[in-house]
């Protein structure tokens, strides 16, 4: 990778300072806004580390969606946003410092020569069905991880749905009354222009993932961002997007592809190089739909029965 430059030193220090400040800020709103800033700077750091796929996921999911979830929750929890200054507890501080110290020591004693897996990935890339190493690892070489991750997403949505309808103490936040939300015509106009563009960007990222940074996760996150924008501007998420077949589609299809391999006498999720490309395209499209639906639904919650 590139050389260490003054930019990296500034970026790293800014990340640590922001982290300190967002934990220490007395006002929770300030903390959340700084968290979004932190996420955007962190995605810049991912680019510096030569990991643009992670940068895309960080900007869309880490900074964007998590920030929106937190801001929305803060708005729905009025009167409880101020807490007293953190009490300094020595055992906790010592434990955290010791953990940090061990990690720093581990970093400083890393051998200079990398013993990574990039060579192994490059050697078998042709058999994976895609030309981009990160996508090859995600969907083929470490397909297990991604399958289980789609399962985690699905479970998270089931748990949120099971935790009851959207608890909004303030009636003006209820989706059915949100048509006259105090956001005005400018946001609605922007959203009406931006959402088609987001769909286009999502489709592009899904297509690009086969040979360049991008893929199902980033595409799904962008589409979910469109869903969040729609909701914020007063358009409720269509109920169909939260239907069980849509949110479970990615997991079910990936599992089916894996089981089909086992049934054909190969190992679970072991894809034949000749079929890998077509199967991965199928899995990626289904995963994108599910990821977008679940992430948007996690924001919108189950519709309140009223």
């Amino acid at each position, binding site marked *: 990778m590139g050389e260490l430059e003054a930019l990296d030193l500034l970026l790293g220090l800014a990340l640590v300072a922001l982290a300190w400040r967002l934990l220490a800020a007395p006002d929770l709103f300030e903390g959340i806004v700084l968290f979004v800033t932190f996420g955007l700077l962190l995605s810049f750091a991912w680019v510096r580390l030569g990991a643009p796929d992670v940068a895309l996921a960080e900007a869309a999911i880490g900074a964007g969606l998590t920030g929106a979830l937190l801001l929305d929750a803060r708005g729905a929890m009025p009167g409880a946003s101020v807490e007293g200054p953190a009490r300094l507890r020595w055992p906790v501080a010592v434990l955290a410092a010791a953990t940090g110290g061990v990690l720093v020591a581990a970093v400083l004693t890393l051998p200079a020569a990398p013993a990574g897996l990039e060579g192994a990935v490059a050697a078998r890339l042709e058999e994976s069905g895609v030309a981009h190493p990160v996508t090859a690892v995600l969907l083929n070489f470490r397909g297990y991880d991604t399958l289980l991750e789609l399962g985690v997403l699905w479970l998270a949505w089931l748990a949120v749905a099971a935790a009851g309808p959207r608890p909004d103490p303030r009636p003006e936040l209820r989706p059915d009354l949100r048509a006259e939300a105090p956001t005005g015509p*400018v946001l609605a106009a922007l959203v009406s222009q931006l959402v088609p563009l987001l769909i286009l960007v999502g489709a592009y990222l899904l297509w690009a993932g086969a040979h360049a940074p991008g893929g199902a996760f980033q595409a799904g996150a962008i589409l979910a961002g469109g869903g969040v924008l729609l909701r914020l501007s007063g358009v409720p998420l269509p109920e169909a997007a939260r239907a069980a077949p849509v949110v479970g589609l990615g997991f079910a299809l990936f599992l089916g592809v894996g089981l089909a391999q086992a049934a054909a006498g190969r190992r679970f999720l072991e894809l034949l190089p000749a079929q890998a490309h077509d199967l991965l395209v199928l899995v990626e499209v289904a995963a994108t739909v599910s990821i977008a639906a679940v992430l948007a639904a996690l924001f919108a919650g189950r519709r309140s029965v009223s």
Partner: protein
Amino acid sequence: MLELASSLFVAAGLVFFVAGTAGLLRFPDALTRLHALTKADNLGLGLLFVGLALRAASWSVAVRLLVVWLLVLFASTTACHLVARAALEARRPPRG
């Protein structure tokens, strides 16, 4: 020659960013701060875009920079409008 022009545009853009940041930190209320901030977003980023486009390896990179700038313009205009609305709302005496 092109390099020099590019550097001048980038430097001019940075002046707007510094001024916008100073305004954000020093101005007394939300509306004047927004005024300072949008100058950095619009003009500062626009000048940066011109400077970087002069250095771009190809037309396609320059067009992409232009699209990024346009998207930021739309987004920052809307965000500014929303913050200003919220600021005016907060200023008004509570209804009822």
